[in-house]
């Protein structure tokens, strides 16, 4: 067999995953071909590259990071255990309610459209329908961002990702979520959603600057710092410097802020 044909089998031979008969074919070729034998020898020779051993400091850094995350999570869980006030209208705020009244709005919109728009062109009807749908999506997102359950609020955040440009009301709701939502996961999701719109909507950056000074969760603080480094905003360094001066700042966050300042300068 020629080298080109063996080339198809050789990678599997190296990982010892050939069938016995294929293995035999390769070995017969290797016995007669110095070139392929050398490639196989090189693969085996790679084993002489030594293994690096992690330093004890690595585990300490990890423990500090995990501790910071757990403290932030404990605070979050304590905040989330608030009693909720029951109401006969609560179902309207549930996802089912939100979808129900959104559909109702759509039907009303369509009815009004057929009544008033019979003389207008179909393209105008379509445009109106698109606007209606955009409005409905925004309503659903806004409604879900106000739910009691963190997973429903997460879903609300993901609804906002379907928008090319955030409506001012949705933007305000997301900014509010980033600053005040009791769940760390929802705040992180809100940051991710907001960061997608930073290029088109400059006010997003100011909301991240504000959140940086107010956040208590180290995990969210680190995520905000990373976001600032990614944007390379000229104002970021001064906000990070201000954060560094906070007396009770978590050591991991302080370390991250130092790193970020060094990257930005």
């Amino acid at each position, binding site marked *: 067999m020629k080298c080109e044909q063996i080339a198809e089998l050789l990678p*599997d031979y190296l990982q010892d995953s050939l069938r016995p008969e294929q293995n035999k074919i390769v070995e017969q070729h290797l016995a007669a071909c110095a070139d392929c034998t050398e490639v196989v020898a*090189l*693969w085996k020779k790679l084993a002489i590259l*030594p293994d690096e051993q992690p330093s004890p400091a690595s585990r300490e850094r990890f423990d500090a990071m995990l501790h910071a995350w757990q403290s932030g999570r404990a605070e979050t869980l304590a905040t989330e255990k608030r009693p909720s006030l029951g109401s006969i209208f609560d179902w309207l705020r549930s996802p089912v309610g939100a979808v129900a009244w959104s559909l109702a709005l759509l039907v009303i919109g369509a009815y009004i459209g057929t009544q008033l728009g019979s003389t207008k062109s179909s393209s105008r009807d379509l445009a109106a329908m698109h606007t209606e749908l955009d409005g409905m999506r925004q309503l659903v997102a806004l409604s879900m961002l106000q739910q009691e359950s963190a997973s429903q609020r997460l879903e609300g955040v993901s609804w906002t990702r379907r928008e090319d440009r955030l409506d001012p009301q949705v933007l305000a709701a997301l900014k509010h979520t980033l600053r005040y939502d009791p769940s760390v996961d929802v705040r992180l999701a809100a940051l991710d959603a907001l960061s997608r719109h930073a290029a088109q909507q400059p006010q997003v950056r100011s909301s991240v600057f504000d959140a940086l000074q107010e956040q208590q969760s180290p995990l969210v603080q680190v995520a905000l710092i990373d976001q600032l*480094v990614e944007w390379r905003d000229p104002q970021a360094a001064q906000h990070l410097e201000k954060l560094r001066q906070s007396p009770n700042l978590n050591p991991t966050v302080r370390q991250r802020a130092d790193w970020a300042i060094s990257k930005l300068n």
Partner: protein
Amino acid sequence: MLQVRNGAGETLGVLFDRYQAPLLNFYCKLTGDRGLSEDLVQEVFLRILRHRQTYRAGTPFRAWIYQIARNARIDHFRKTRPQVPFEPEMAPTVNPADPAQRQQESELLHRALMQLPEEKRELLILCRFQELRYDEVARLVGCGVSTVKVRIHRALHELREAFHQLQAAPADSPRRGAPQNFPPRRLDHEV
């Protein structure tokens, strides 16, 4: 990992103990920079905490963590170009008990590895040292299994050529061009 996803952060310690050494070796062989590699290992576990909700039950954890590891490195180099070129002092430490020839071969081999283009070096490391199967690597880098095999074969030939050149060159001769450390493409759906 499911326990970590559902809030039991302390379980992450078990995963850290299991994966920190393989990840450290992945990064060291890929970048030749131990300090940076240690930072990137920490970054991987921070990302696991931040993105734990994206882990799906039934997904092989090993493939998922290497996905995160690749992205952490790609994002790092995207933010901090230009990359520091490989220097001999960055070469991995060799067990002093090894014979001198073995140590020299190990250094040459590491230098030859660092001369490979980034994508080929990464594939070779994933398949040879991280014990990932070709199909797992194919999913990781977003190409077909046969493409991975072809690239591995070519990478080995290039490695052999680089190794021969280094062996033939006098010890104090200038090194061939700096490694092509351009990070590979990041897949859109990745965390």
